[in-house]
């Protein structure tokens, strides 16, 4: 008797045939263009300490759009979500631990 591995819990047993519509891709591109223009426009105005946070916020929105729709994460199995989210979690660890050292040292030049 051949062993039949139990794949009952397997999410993508049949080929994932999900195919987004062409319109969706053009909408995503259009949204990315709008945010690109927004980031340039925001940088032309002096918002003092807010320029960088706004630029980064727009970049995060753009990256999220690319990840969800161009990279198809929105229709991906949970396992993919775990890898994507945990990679940014590790990035957060990298930043938080490093900066919590550097930014709290007395000898910093500000």
């Amino acid at each position, binding site marked *: *008797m*051949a062993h*039949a*591995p139990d*794949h009952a819990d*397997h*999410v*993508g*047993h*049949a*080929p*994932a*045939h999900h*195919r*987004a519509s*062409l319109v969706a*891709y*053009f909408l*995503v*591109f259009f949204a*990315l*263009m709008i945010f*690109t223009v927004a*980031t*340039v426009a925001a*940088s032309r105005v*002096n918002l003092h300490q807010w*320029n*960088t946070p706004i*630029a*980064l916020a*727009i*970049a995060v929105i*753009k*990256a999220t759009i*690319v*990840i969800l*729709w*161009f*990279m*198809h994460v929105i229709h991906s*199995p949970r*396992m*993919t979500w775990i*890898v*994507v989210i*945990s*990679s*940014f979690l*590790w*990035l957060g660890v*990298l*930043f938080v631990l*490093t*900066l919590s050292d*550097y*930014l709290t040292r007395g000898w*910093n*030049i*500000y």
Partner: protein
Amino acid sequence: MRNPTLYDLQHPGAAGSQPADDAAAHHHPFLQHHFEDLGQQHEASTLGMWFFVAQEILFFGGIFCAYTIYRVMYPAAWSAGAHHQNWKIGLFNTIVLIGSSLTMALAVWGAQAAKRKFTTLMLVLTLLLGSAFVGVKGYEYREHIHEGLFPGSNFTYVHHEDPSLTHGIELFMVFYFTMTGLHALHMIIGAGLLIWFIKRAWRGDFGEEYYSPVEIMGLYWHFVDIVWIFLFPLLYLIH
């Protein structure tokens, strides 16, 4: 009902082994024998690519973190350094790169629909837009080098308004060349892969059932796009 074993797949008519289904007798030429079906193979390969992308996020993340530390230390020099970047060229390149991400996504769409010519055309467009990006980057590099902004012994630039910023600007340029250089290297590797994919797409390798390689190529290309989405404001648009 049991799953077909490797033996069944290789000997569809063998005595005592009844092909479990048609898939066993006529399995897809690109189905690797250690996977049950193309769906499982697709899931495994995209997940593997995501692990690679996770590694890439941390690879670039380390450089972004170093950038942050030195920017906090030398804000005035960073601002003066960014002044040497032409934001109009940066904007142009951003549009070109996001455009290439669109054509890449459309190539995946075409591969899923088994549209051979459309997929090939979209991959060619992606390659052209990607090459245009690298070409423009090369032009920018030439201008910076001409201005004496290449770090090291060739750094001849002096900031006349405030000469004390000169070395900070040199440090900014170290980050500029490292970050955009590594990004451009990724683009060049991607362009090389695209040439191979154009050949495969034209040959008709991809279709409804088997498009994972194009999907994975897309993941790589979009990741490189995301890196630029952060590089553009951080290198061109700071005050």
